[in-house]
Structure formats: structure tokens, C-alpha cells
């Protein structure tokens, strides 16, 4: 399925900013399930220096430097992507303990290696409550696909999607305790639960199709950047994606942008701005079949 994606991020500063140095992770990535045909980012005002690089995890980073006075900043990203994701046919013989043990013994530290995704980060540390939650779902010798999907659905069912109840710094524990949050929080909770039982899980940021295909419900999170979770099965199968916000496996309505250990690794934009005053920002995303 081919999508054309456009996203616009705008910052307004109450005072004058004299410098800015930023890194944006907004361009879709190419992997075995999706192929980027075209993509570009335009920054206004025009940066004095800008360029692209691949970060450690293989995400495309657009960096830029502003050193003239400016009071707003906008980033426009447009891309065309072919998504060829097929429903994953993982055998029921693939039990989750097998994935755990293989990941633990893996002799690989390359960017796609599950070794990076076994340890909790400060945003994904499990406490007793998350541990109990995880143990209630991962049962002995059960198929990985069944348990992970159950985890995905349980989070969607038991937690309330609500803006403004959490912030970018909210940890999995905090979101779990208050049982509300947005896609970032649900992804962190799911990651914390998986890593707690020793299963490698990573954070995925990306875009969602704005309007659903006929007969399907509209997915939550389509108006801005979305986030979901990828779980490692084995070296041959690799990483399989699940969306705890919408309680489903990821199929043909998701377009991946960046992967990492948690939100911090994939943040759509990170940077430092020099100047007085406060900031306000808005994001608009549109994803339509091309």
C-alpha cells in the first residue's frame, strides 16, 4: 500500500531566539516491511548549516543549526512510502522463553541486536505492579505471539487514552499507576512489562493512516506522531510490531519512523534553543493512500 505523508511541526517563541541547534527524527525508515520512495524536510527559517545522518539505531536524523534571530520555527516533512507488511505467521511453537534465552546469549551488538533492548531505561523500569501485571500475562511455555497480543489488548482495554494527563517525562510506573496516558505511555508500559520477563522490546515512533479503510474504526493517535512497540522473536523472524494504544498487531496503517530503547532515542525533535521566553508548539499530520 502506498501512502503519501505530510507533517508540519511549528514552534512559536514568546521572545527572540538567537540560536538553535536541533535534531529531528521525522523521516520514515526503510526496512523489510516498508520502502521510502521520496522524503524531505524543509526548515523555516533557513538554517545556516544542516545535514542528515544515520543515528546508532539506523534512524534518519535531520540536524540543523540556526544562528540568526528568529521567533518561530517550522519543519515540514513530506514523504511517499510503500508499506508491504504482511500478517506475521509465527508458529505456536515459538514460545516466549525461547526468544528470551536466545536474546540473552546473543553475540551481537549491532544496531538491530536484541541485546540493546533487554535492560530497563529510566522511563521503562518496572516496579512491583508492572511485574505482577507482566507475570499475569506471560504464562509458562506459551506462544510468544499469543502472549504479546494479549498484553497489547490488555493495555488497550485497561488504560484510558487521555491527553494532558502525562508528559514526555512520565515513566512507565507513573502511567501504570494512574491508568491513563497517551501512546508514548502505553508503549513504555508494554516495554517495561516485556523487558521485565526478559523479552527484548523496543519503542517505535511513526505515523498512522489518517482515515481508516472503509469498515474499520479510526485509530487513536493519527493526528500527531504515534508510538508503538516492537518485540523480538528470533534471528530469522526479527522484530514484530504491536500497537498497545489501539490493542492490535501492526499491519498496513502504520508507517515507522524511528526505533530505540524508549521515547528519548526516537524523539521527533531534540534540541537547544538560546533565547528568553517560553515556547508553544503544534503538530499536524496527514497520511493518505497515494
Amino acid at each position, binding site marked *: 500500500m502506498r501512502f503519501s505523508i505530510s507533517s508540519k511541526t511549528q514552534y512559536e517563541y514568546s521572545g527572540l531566539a538567537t540560536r538553535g541547534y536541533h535534531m529531528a527524527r521525522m523521516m520514515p525508515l526503510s526496512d523489510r516491511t516498508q520502502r521510502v520512495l521520496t522524503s524531505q524536510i524543509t526548515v523555516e527559517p533557513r538554517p545556516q*548549516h544542516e545535514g542528515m545522518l544515520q543515528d546508532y539505531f539506523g534512524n534518519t536524523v535531520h540536524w540543523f543549526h540556526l544562528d540568526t534571530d528568529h521567533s518561530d520555527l517550522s519543519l515540514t516533512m513530506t514523504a511517499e512510502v510503500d508499506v508491504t507488511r504482511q500478517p506475521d505467521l509465527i508458529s505456536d511453537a515459538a514460545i516466549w522463553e525461547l526468544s528470551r534465552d536466545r536474546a540473552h546469549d*546473543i*553475540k551481537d551488538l549491532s544496531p538491530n541486536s536484541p541485546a540493546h533492548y533487554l535492560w530497563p531505561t529510566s522511563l521503562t523500569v518496572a516496579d512491583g505492579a508492572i*511485574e505482577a501485571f507482566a507475570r499475569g500475562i506471560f504464562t509458562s511455555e506459551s506462544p510468544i505471539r499469543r502472549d504479546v497480543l494479549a498484553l497489547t489488548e490488555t493495555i488497550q482495554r485497561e488504560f484510558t487514552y487521555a491527553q494532558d494527563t502525562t508528559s514526555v517525562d512520565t515513566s512507565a510506573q507513573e502511567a501504570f499507576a494512574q491508568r491513563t496516558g497517551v501512546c*508514548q505511555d502505553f508503549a513504555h508500559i508494554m516495554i517495561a512489562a516485556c523487558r521485565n520477563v526478559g523479552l527484548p522490546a523496543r519503542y517505535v515512533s511513526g505515523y498512522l493512516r489518517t482515515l481508516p479503510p472503509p469498515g474499520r474504526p479510526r485509530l487513536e493517535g493519527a493526528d500527531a506522531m504515534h508510538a508503538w512497540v516492537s518485540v523480538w522473536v528470533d534471528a530469522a523472524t526479527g522484530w514484530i510490531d504491536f500497537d498497545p494504544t489501539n490493542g492490535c498487531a501492526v499491519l498496513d496503517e502504520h508507517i515507522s519512523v524511528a526505533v530505540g530503547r524508549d521515547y528519548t532515542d526516537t524523539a*521527533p*525533535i*531534540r*534540541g537547544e534553543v538560546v533565547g528568553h521566553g517560553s*515556547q508553544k508548539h503544534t503538530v499536524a499530520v496527514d497520511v493518505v493512500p497515494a
Partner: protein
Amino acid sequence: MTEHQHRRDDHVSANSLPADWREHYTPIPGTYDELVDHTGEIRPAWRDLSARWDQLEPDDHAARWRSADRYMRETGVAHRVYGADHSVERPWPLSHLPLVIGHEEWQRLEAGLIQRADLLEAVVQDVYGPQALIRSGELPARLVAGSPGFLRPLVGLPPRSGHHLHFIAIEIGRGPDGRWWVLGDRTQAPSGAGYALENRIASQRSVGSDLRALRVHRIAGFFQAFRDSLNRMRDPGSTRIGLLTPGPFNETYYEQALLARYLGFLLLEGGDLIHEGDAIYVRTVRGLRRVDVLWRRLDASFCDPVELLPESRLGVAGLVQALRARTVTCVNSLGAGLLESRGLLAFMPRLSMHLLGEPLALPNIATWWLGDGTMREEARISGVDTARLSAFGSELPMDKMTNPCVETSASHSDAQVEQEVVRLSAMPTLDRDGDGEAFRLRPRPFSLRVFLSRTQEGWKVLPGGFCRVTDTDDTRALSMHTGSRSADVWVRSDGYVRPTSLLSRSANEEVRRVPGTLPARAADNLFWLGRYAERAQLSLRLARSLIMRRGEAEGLDDTALSAVTAQLKTWGFEETDDELTLVDALMVNLQLAHGSASAIRDRFSPDAWQSLNRFVIARDGNQFMARDALSEINEALMMLAAFAGLIGENMVRLSGWRFLEIGRRLERAIGTAQVCQTLAFSDHLKTTEEAGDDGTAQLELLLDLADSVMSYRQRYAVTTDRTTALDLIVLDPNNPRSIAFQLEKINDHIHEISDHRAFEQSSDLQRLSFSLWSKAHTLRAADLNSSTVIDVTNGLYRVSEALTSAFIRPIAPSALLQEQRG
């Protein structure tokens, strides 16, 4: 003086090394003793020293130890200690006796340490490069991936210098069998080398012997070689080496300032640096200057908020990008801290075989990573006394665990190691005998931090080190935070010891008189130090007049008193009858001066800093016994005079000194103008004049405050006249307290610092200061009135603003971009 210091002084003055010290010295059972062997014989390395002790009278010992104590106190050797909700700088306690290590033993140690340094470099090269150790399973991927020191953005970026490690420390201790063991590796930003330097100076005093006669290796050569090797890494055209500090609130800031001063490096905070284009620059008073070698004392993850820890406010946004562009060298590389993870110790023996083809010459303490099934089993059957510790921590096993590892659940018990509990060897210290008054020589366990730096000829080991001695027999409580002492380390040579000092340089070093690079932040602090110190002086003087006049039984002059009170009020001090409350309030200027000075300690002679520091610390500690407002004021004024004198005599006339001078002169001129305004021109004085008061009392007070009574009496013998008094205080260019005199000096300094004319604003500044100066030199005393004085005051404020915008250009606060989320 702190309570702690009092106690230590008592130690020494009341007691000294007893003549019969040998009989009373009993080694701790089951440990190796550094001083005596199992038969009670003094070990060879210590014999020369102990022979000298025997020759000394008890009083000589006492005098020498006192002298060492005083040195440590007066140079301000300090260490910041964190309490529950605040932190204080505490003097660094020095153990009076050094640790002595013999020549041959040291040579063996050196070889083992150098082998380890090479091994560490090989490991870090591989992890950030080809990762062959991981693919072959020599190093588990999972262990490296979990280490907080493993910085992913740095993978695949070979350091510009070709090496990750340039300056490291290795922590060692000696076991009961007499063998040395490695306790931990310090590759992030090791501290302690500067303390070793201070300890050396102090211990020379305490032992009172000529170290050359005792054939003790000098340590200056090590620092010289380190400095030279960093200098060789610089690009032509870049400025001096930068020492990147976390700032004055870091626990070892004292040491960082000391090393910067000693080595001639720029002491830089993240805020001094800016990333532009592809390089890193220092913001100086003369614009941006490129810096390309940074010796960092900042943990790597704090170095760049955009690519590393986003919450860091101490780093430089863009440093990683500059590393990518290979325009900067960090020492050690960002990412080298990975090697500090305790879990790696479990793998070092076999990594040594694998990478070097030889066993470790200096073994590390037995460590088993619990994430590895085989190791878990080995630990269980080892029969060794072990402790369970975080695999990713780096504290010594005997350090108090101040930072328990992140709560990890059962499945992450493999974030832990079992590590052998070591019984460290003991060295002699002078200790209180129980609760009694007697003191005696007593063995105390210690650990030793040894430093290595990479030079052109390979690794060089500091012949000495930083030795930490416990205050108890308990080898598990050894931490700088919890009150242990440190000791100097003497490495004996088998031959003649050549004197070296950082000052003896090779002949081809060019003579340089040009001003160095003054970071804008340092200029700002110097300027404000000058202003606060002067403001403190003026307000204290005013308060002194107030208190003295109040105390005078007769001649109490209400008008003068109310004028003084009014002036204090304009400076923000509330009227109070309690003199001590007033004195405490006035000290705020001293605290501000102290704050400015503490951020630029590398720019002063230690004496100048210490005169200010001791006073402020003593006041903070409430150590004035019986409080008396007048004597406190006098003491503060004397200290300020001493401070100004030490600066005037000892600071090189470079731009830094000029910023301080401008601040001082500007504040003096402003203060004098304000006092003139209050005492000679204000409205309430007019009413008293109408009432028949001739204002003599105010004029005398004015002369007093301007410290010009003597000058006035030399010129005008008898009466006090308003015009002549104002002439002396405002316009007389020969009176060093007059406003005109200050303007002349300010104008000179501004002329000097504006030489290069790099910025348009400097000419504005020069014009402003020149016009103010010429105005003061063309006015006549009779022209002086309230509005001319106000004009001068406003002119001075404009000079201050213009100076700030031309040279200091305070950078606006930086904020992280708000992040967005779905």
C-alpha cells in the same frame, strides 16, 4: 577554623610521635603491614625515614605536623561534601605520614599498570569499533549493552587522536599475601591527581626531610609530560587546552581549578563553549576562539544534551557532532567510561589472554558476573567471601554504597556481580588512642589510586598517587565522603633524583607576554568580584561610622545619623537597632564576592582566594566566639584590604586583572557619588541648613567614608568647607579615592582592553568612558550640585552596561526544545 581542624591541631600540639613508637605499633592481625614485617622489623623501603624519626625530638614532630596542617588549611585544599539538603566545602584531612613504596616493587607495579592500560585501550577500541570481542563471545553483548557508560552515538567514531584513553587512574590495594590487586579502573574523568600534588607539598613539611636525600621520586615530571602530550594534539591556531569542569558545585572543583592553574589550561564550563559550524569555540572577551582539546572532568553522558543525556545543563549542545567532524579531541574519549563497569572485571583475565596473549601481570580482585551461568556457578563454589554488587557500578567494594543500583527485578539479577571482599593492607597513621588524650602510631587500611598518562614514549605512571586511609579498622568504610584521610605516596628511587618542576621547560618554548584567552564568563565574574568587594567595603565603612557615632556619648548628631541610615537604605539594608543584624545583612556583599571568586579560582593566586575564602567560611560556620559588631566589621575590612593587596601585587596585568579593576573602580565611583548625593545634596539636609546647621558633621562623615580625612587635613588645616571637601572627594585627580581618579583608571583600562577593536561596541564604550572622564576633569568644585552628581552616576551605569555588552555579552538562557508526543 572548623571544629574538625581544632581537633586535629590538638592532636599534634599535645602529642607527637612517641619515642617508644616501635613498641606500641601492632599490625592488624591477618593483614599485610606496610611498615613492619611479621617479625616486627621495619621494611627496607621505610628504614631511612624511620631512622630520621628516631633522630627527631618529640617537639620537632609536633611542629612539623602543625606546619603541614596549616599548609592544607591555608591553601584551601578542599573537597565538597554533600549532605541531606546542602553541600559544603570541607578541608581535606591529610594523614601525617606518607605511604612509602620501594624501587623494585614500584617497577613491578608500573609494568602491571601499563599492561592494564594497554588492555583497557584495546577493549574500548574494539567495543566502539569492530566489536570482534562481542562476536567471539569474549565479552557478552548484554553486559556491554547494559552499561551506562556505553554511549551508542559514539560507536563507529574513532577518536581524532587515535586513542580513547590518555589519562586514567587505576585503584589498587594490597592483599594479606603481600600482592597488589586492582580494585577498579577509572577511565571516565578520574580525580585525585591534583590532591596528590597538594599532599606532596604538605607532606614535605610534615616529614621535614629533604625528599631528594631520601631518594623520593618527583611527581612534577609526570604532569609536564601529560601537558606536553595534550599540547601536541592541538591544531595550529586553536587556543589553549580546555579543562571542562562541571562547575563550582562539583565535589572536586577545588582540584580542577588547581590543575588548570598548575598546567596552564583554561578552566571551562559548558556555558563557556559554543558549537558553530563543525567546531567548538570558547566565548572570550575577544570573541570566539576555537578550542580543540578538552580534558573533561564532566561525565561523558552530560557532555551534549542533544545527543546524550537530554536533562544535562552542563554540556555543550553539538559536541558529539564536532567529534563526528573530527574537529575536537576529548580526553578521555566520550564513551571510555564504559570500562569502569564493575562487571568488566570478571572478563579482564581472559581478555588479557585473548588480546595480549599474556596473563594479567597485576590481577584484579575476583569478580563473577551473575548474568553468566558458568560464572554464577564458579562464584558459588569459590569458597571466597564475596559481596553482591551492581555489575554497572564503579565504587570500590569497600566504599559505602551511596548509589544503590536502579531497582532491578528478579529477571535482572544479572545486573549484579559477586565480588571478593578484600582485606586491604595497612599503613602507619597517627591516631587518637581510644577516647584518651594519648596518641599513637597505628596501622590503618588504605587503597591507592595510581595515575597514568599517555605520552609520546607510551604510558607514563605518576610515581606516587592518591592514597585514601580509613579512620577505622573496617576496610568496608573507605570513602572520601565519610571522613577518611588521604596520604602522600613516596616512591623510592634507586639512584639520584633529578629535580623537575613545571617551570623548567625546554629551551625552544617561546616567551609569551601576550594576554591569554579570557573566557567571557571569567571576565564577568572578575568584574563582579571587583564590584561586590568594593561595595562590601563601602557599606561596611558606612556601618562602622553609624555604630561609632551612636556609641559616642556626646556630639551625637541626628542629621548625620539619619543620613547614614538613609544611605544604607538606598543600598537595600533595613534600619535596625541591632548592630549584629546589620552586620550580618552587610555580609551579603562578601558572600556575593565569594560566589563570583569561587567560580574563577584558577585565576587567582591561592593566597588571594584564601584570604576571602577563610573569612567567609569562618563566618558561615559561626566561628566568631564572642560576637561584636565593630570588631567583625574591622576584621572584614582588613580582610578586604588584604585581598585587594594580594590581587594588586600578584595578579598579572592581563585583561582578567583589568576587568576586576574596572569593577572595583566603577563601584567605588558609584558608591562615592551616592554618598555625596546623600550627605551633601539631599533635601533633608537643606532643611537642617535652614535651621542653622552648617552641615559640618555631614561633611566630616563624607570625608571619613571616602577615606579622605587625612588628605583633607593635609591641605586644609582647620575648618571643613563644603566646596573644598567636595573638590577633594569628587574632582581631585590626585586623591586615589576621588571619583575623578576612578574615572581616569577606568578610562585607562578600557583603552587597554579595547585595543583589538573586534566589536563595534567597544568604540561606544570608549567614547562613553572618555566623555565621563573629561567631564570630571573640566568641572569646577563650585559647579557641583545634585544634578551633576546624578549625571556622573548615570554615566557610570552606562559604562557598566556598555562594557558588559561589548565584552561579556551574556548569552541568553538556553532551553531544550519542548518535545512532542503522540
